[in-house]
């Protein structure tokens, strides 16, 4: 028997990562199938391949920390502890969905776990995240805001305005680039002379690291470092987390911009497979316990689909709720005769 080297994380942590990432993977696989079957409409940006990013982010932050992300947001609520049935119901546009069927795939919110969206305009959440962090500092808390964005958002002007102010004001924010190397079909290399995204913060003096986003341990360590830095009042950090999406940008993507070999090379370093190997090689759980996890995940996925399919559509009057805080706003009603 090989000598037992001490693992950097607990058995419980590895098992939780495995279960959370597997749940996201299986839910997303199903979401993709259901979308093709036209069970729901709109856009559908799958998180498959990127699971380690959100899993390592959530494990390295506290319950009171805030999270905001872009439109590839199906994984966030699940990793943050929301039952996937509420996410699935939102994909279906049902009244039981996370945003009552008003936000859909791109706009998952949960006040319960401090997930402040799910945002569909590329880069808009960068400033919102800094503002959320601004409020934490203003209120004198020790909380940070993890502000996620894709590599495409890095080229938006709002990033530069926000980075400048966030550094100048020492806002407690971790800027996390979920760098899957493609802004839709345009690779990072094709959009700028600055191809190493960790350099983007340099002209604002922002500390930065590049991270292997296929390894959940590495993501966790980087977020921990960034969050502690921000919590200590030293201001923001930038993490260029290099990950990969196995599926297209959205469901209508023929993926002519990359090779099958490239996709395969990333699948060989699959984050879920790697965590499972760690569990197995270190005997953190027996086959039965692993099977139990897989069964639990399967059951949750089935339950989620059933819940989403059986939930009610929002009532027509729901259209007039939540546009304004007050219930009696005098809407002009010329939409029906």
């Amino acid at each position, binding site marked *: 028997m090989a000598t037992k080297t001490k693992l950097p994380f607990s058995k419980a942590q590895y098992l939780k990562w495995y279960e959370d990432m597997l749940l996201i993977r299986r839910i997303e696989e199903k979401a993709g199938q259901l979308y093709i079957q036209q069970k729901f409409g709109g856009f559908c940006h799958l998180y498959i391949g990127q699971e380690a990013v959100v899993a390592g982010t959530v494990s390295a932050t506290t319950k009171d920390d805030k999270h905001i992300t872009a439109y590839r947001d199906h994984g966030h609520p699940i990793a943050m502890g929301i039952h996937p049935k509420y996410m699935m119901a939102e994909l279906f546009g049902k009244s039981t969905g996370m945003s009552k069927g008003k936000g859909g795939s791109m706009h998952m919110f949960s*006040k319960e776990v401090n997930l402040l969206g*799910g945002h569909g305009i590329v880069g*808009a959440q960068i*400033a*919102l995240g*800094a503002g959320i962090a601004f409020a934490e500092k203003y209120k004198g808390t020790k909380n940070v805001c993890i502000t996620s964005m894709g590599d495409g958002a890095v080229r938006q*002007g*709002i990033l530069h305005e926000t980075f400048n102010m966030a550094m100048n004001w020492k806002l407690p924010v971790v800027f996390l680039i979920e760098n899957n190397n493609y802004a839709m079909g345009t690779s990072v290399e094709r959009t700028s002379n600055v191809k190493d995204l960790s350099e983007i913060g340099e002209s604002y003096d922002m500390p930065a690291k590049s991270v292997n986003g296929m390894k959940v341990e590495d993501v966790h360590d980087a977020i921990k470092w960034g969050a502690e830095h921000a919590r200590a009042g030293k201001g923001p950090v930038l993490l260029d987390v290099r990950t990969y999406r196995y599926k297209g940008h959205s469901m209508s993507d023929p993926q002519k911009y990359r090779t099958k070999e490239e996709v395969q090379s990333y699948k060989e370093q699959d984050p879920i497979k790697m965590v499972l190997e760690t569990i197995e090689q270190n005997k953190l759980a027996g086959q039965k316990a692993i099977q139990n996890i897989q069964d639990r995940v399967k059951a949750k996925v089935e339950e989620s689909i059933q819940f989403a399919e059986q939930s009610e559509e929002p009532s027509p009057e729901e259209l007039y709720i939540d*546009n304004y805080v007050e219930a009696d706003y005098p809407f002009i009603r010329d939409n029906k005769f």
Partner: protein
Amino acid sequence: MRIIQFREALNEAMSEEMRRDERVFLMGEEVAEYNGAYKVSQGMLDEFGPERVIDTPIAELGFTGIGVGAAMNGLRPIVEFMTFNFAVLAADQIINSAAKMLQMSGGQYGAPIVFRGPNGQAGQLAATHSQSFEAFYAHVPGLKVITPSNPYDAKGLLKAAIRDENPVLFMESERMYGDKGEVPEGEYILPIGKADVTREGPDCTIISFGKIIKLVKNAADELAKEGIKVEVIDLRTIRPLDSETIMNSVKKTNRLVIVEESWPFASISSEISYQVQNQAFDYLDAPIRRLTQSDTSFAFSKSLIKEALPEVKDIMMAVKAAMYLL
């Protein structure tokens, strides 16, 4: 009653609300150390300190987004734009983020925030610095839009805007900051969505808002000398529009002239005209008339400005046309 300037009324509104509610803060270009580009925030840095009166870099999109994020997370920001012309750079955060946050989150996260600053033409500033944005923002559900025309309304409405749970655009004017008017000591709030009938009369209704209402007053005075008694409605709030006050007045006078400082196409006067013909068709004794800015970009030369804007005599003529006196 004491007389103070428009800018002082705004300053009092913000300062009183900041004393009352620690969540309220002011951010924008030159609001702190410079005391405001138009001195609206004079002395506020001294009273509230740099944590609550915050100078930003020239980065409208970024600081507006930071304001909206802060509002989502429990604060009550006042974001000052040096003018609403520059807020065009921040329109994504106003229209896509602030206006829709409550709805897209299914009621979980709102954006109680005030965007304020000067709006509309202010003399020879040429095309990009002379635009009125009421119709742009009033088009968007989720937003409220206020344009006060005098110091009293400005104070009462700004306090209401700061306390409102929704995103509010509060539109002032460089040309109004020095205006003086009666403002009582002590606190008062004016309701959002309530127009003010500033002059009663049986012959014709004139609806207007913002600084051009001064011309309406002059026209009403001149018309009175000729024996024509008009009713003047100052909208004060553009969205939600006080349709009830409008209809009540039209039902009384049976004639309507609308005067606004912005462009004609898809304007506030367009919307009011639709509503009045729809809800008070049988009460109208004449076609609705309106006066707006020219359907052109605003030009620099004084002679071109004179051509672009309606004048007192135009308002008088429009009223007479509505009364079939021409």
